[in-house]
């Protein structure tokens, strides 16, 4: 986009990333927590694309492509784990999974 300062892209991505962090901290539903993680991944993707456009280097956009492949793998495994947890505990509350808690 012509004319938008790079700072505003950084600011915008930071805000979205913080929203993702807040979502992880305040929700107890495991699926919503994974959705917040997706939000964080996406904000980083947008920032990589903005920097790549800023410096005229296509490598940044290739990195975004790899992050998307990684996110797809992460979601598939994560949702399988969530389905298994639900089958065993009958809830998605992450506070029921406190065996590993110190």
């Amino acid at each position: 986009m012509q004319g938008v300062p790079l700072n505003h892209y950084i600011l915008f991505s930071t805000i979205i990333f913080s929203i993702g962090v807040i979502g992880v901290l305040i929700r107890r539903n495991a699926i919503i927590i994974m959705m917040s993680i997706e939000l964080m991944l996406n904000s980083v993707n947008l920032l990589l694309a903005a920097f790549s456009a800023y410096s005229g280097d296509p490598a940044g956009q290739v990195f975004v492509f790899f992050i998307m492949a990684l996110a797809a793998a992460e979601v598939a495994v994560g949702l399988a784990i969530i389905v298994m947890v639900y089958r065993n505990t009958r809830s998605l509350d992450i506070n029921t999974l406190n065996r590993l808690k110190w």
Partner: protein
Amino acid sequence: MMVFYFVAFLSIFFALMTIFTKNPVHSVLYLVITFFTFTVHYVLLNAQFLAVVNFIVYLGAIMVLFLFVLMLLNLNEETEPMKSNLVKIMGTVAGLCFLTTIIGSLNLLEASNPLILKNPDIGLVHNLGKVLFDEFLLPFEISSILLLTAMVGAVLLAKKDPKKAQSEPENV
């Protein structure tokens, strides 16, 4: 230029709705809108390949997977576990502290030049494909192994335990 600020506002609004809505299904739908606004951002950056991939992979595949699992588990507002207000406030304050730290460190950075596309063609499929299959060929092949591993892992994890299924046949 105004389009960026408008779409950025929409993204932030729908992202906030995603984490503050009680009903998980509504949450997923708001997240779909958020990802759609991200696609618009990619179009504004002239990263057309990323826009298309974002649209197909995130909106088409990942969000449908989320929605499918939510409906499979039959979740709704009544069964939604909520944290106490104290934890919510503390979480929000912690997130805002993170935001303030990054914004404060931005002041030290001299990167406020306007974003002008030096080479507007880098986001096209033609150019990205050349880079992807030349410089990044090895990571590309390794990512295919990663996806295969994830597929096998997901099938293994979500499969019913055969011994358990025999002892408790009514267990879903």
